[in-house]
């Protein structure tokens, strides 16, 4: 009896996690993929590991530490590249390694055993707390509202920022707010897929969607759907096969991407064949 309740709890958690992860990753992912911010997002992800280490050392919630690190590094890179004071890709590369270094040093200095380290690096649904799920749920609502209300403004600013500046004085505010939300999305999904793999949770679904649509709003919808299928299936497979969940989710998503791409190419080829 007890076992089945635990199992039930595990399934609910996994399912909710999959729903919220795919919503947040689909929205934020479409933004970063379209705007070619994948490398910056990788930098944010790894920089946030520094916050995790500091959280461990000083004994506060590592996710909070990661969120502060992630958001500050994201805004810092945006601000500096805006002023064209830095070579953006180099700065991201430095930030990337620096965050990891801080994280490793502080976790090393933390007295005693740190059992959750692996779960932060590679993700583990077992260590996902109810608070994590609730945070992801709130994040989903925030992102849906934000993208729903400001859809066109966000789309137009990210497509052609310099043109947007000719009619709007809100360009910078939107840029910074969206980047901060992306950073927060990444950090909250670290529990699911881990520092090393989380970025793929954001980048693969939009790339699946972009195989068959170029309409921004549809890319978002298809990304969420593809993300959900990949996450839920990956979760189930990892459960039954007893393999790490983060890696299984990413593996499943890549397989989906390859299969969809192949099918789409074949359909395209057959259509061409018919015409000739």
């Amino acid at each position: 009896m007890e076992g089945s309740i635990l199992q039930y709890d595990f399934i609910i958690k996994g399912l909710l996690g999959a729903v919220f992860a795919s919503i947040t990753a689909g929205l934020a992912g479409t933004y970063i993929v379209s705007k070619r911010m994948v490398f910056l997002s990788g930098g944010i992800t790894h920089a946030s590991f520094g916050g995790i280490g500091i959280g461990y050392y000083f004994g506060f919630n590592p996710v909070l530490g990661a969120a502060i690190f992630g958001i500050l590094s994201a805004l810092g890179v945006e601000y500096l590249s805006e002023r064209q004071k830095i070579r953006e890709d180099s700065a991201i590369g430095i930030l990337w390694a620096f965050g990891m270094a801080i994280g490793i040093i502080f976790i090393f200095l933390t007295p005693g055993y740190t059992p959750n380290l692996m779960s932060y690096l590679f993700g583990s649904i077992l260590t996902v707390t109810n608070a994590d799920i609730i945070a992801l749920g709130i994040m989903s609502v925030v992102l849906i509202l934000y993208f729903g209300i400001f859809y066109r403004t966000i789309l137009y600013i990210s497509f052609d920022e310099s043109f947007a500046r000719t009619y709007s004085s809100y360009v910078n505010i939107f840029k910074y707010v969206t980047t901060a939300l992306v950073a927060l999305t990444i950090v909250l999904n670290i529990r699911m897929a881990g520092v090393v793999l989380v970025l793929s949770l954001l980048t693969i679904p939009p790339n699946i969607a972009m195989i068959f649509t170029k309409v921004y709003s549809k890319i978002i919808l298809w990304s969420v759907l593809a993300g959900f299928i990949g996450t839920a299936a990956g979760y189930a497979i990892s459960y039954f096969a007893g393999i790490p969940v983060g890696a299984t989710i990413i593996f499943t998503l890549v397989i989906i991407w390859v299969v969809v791409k192949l099918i789409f190419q074949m359909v395209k080829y057959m259509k061409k064949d018919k015409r000739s």
Partner: protein
Amino acid sequence: MANLLEMRSLSASYDNNVVLENVDFAVGENDFIGVIGPNGGGKTTLLKVILGLIKPVKGKIIFNDDLLKGNSIGYLPQISTGDASYPVTVTDIILSGMMIRKRLLSRMSAHDKVKAREIIEKLGLSGMERSSLSELSGGQIQRVFLGRAIIGNPKLLLLDEPGNFVDSTFENDFYAKLKELNNRMAILMVSHDIGMISSHVKSYACVNRSLHYHPSSEISNEQLLAYGCPIQLITHGEVPHTVLKTHS
């Protein structure tokens, strides 16, 4: 004829270099002004000052708020802005030009979408409504951006080097279209190619750090020499033509 905007003893700099100095210049309601001058002379900076992207370091620019309500300025930038592989459709890009008339929270109405369809048809882009820029030719992309610049029905249209991308088959259509637009909006067209625009504009502004305005579309060689513009002579004969003078 009322002025849309007026610059008074205006100076502007770019990266701490003074690019425009002591400029007095006005744009009237139905003007069609060709902005000419050498590269780096301040032509684009002039447009950016009008768009509010660069603040003058000295002097001022005064807008006629009755005519130029809010941001009623259409802008066709040089093609480099905007990522061609960005997943956004032709219709959405053209609709983005409506933002000059929108408040932050207002949405696109059905009427806006009808207007976008009309513009797509007029610019010969039918069938490409849902295409992204990566599927279009350079000339077609240019027309999409022209559509974006005019859909908000601005009172002033700024064109930055449109000649660079207009394909030859569309060139005549393009200038005919501008002529028609000029009936309801003033146009300021930047070009380094005087020959190309000479038969279309009503007047000239020569920009090379300073600005000299020529009310008629004919410029004498002496004037050009005095202002340090490219040495070309433009005449209006039976057929508009350009005579290139030898370099001094």
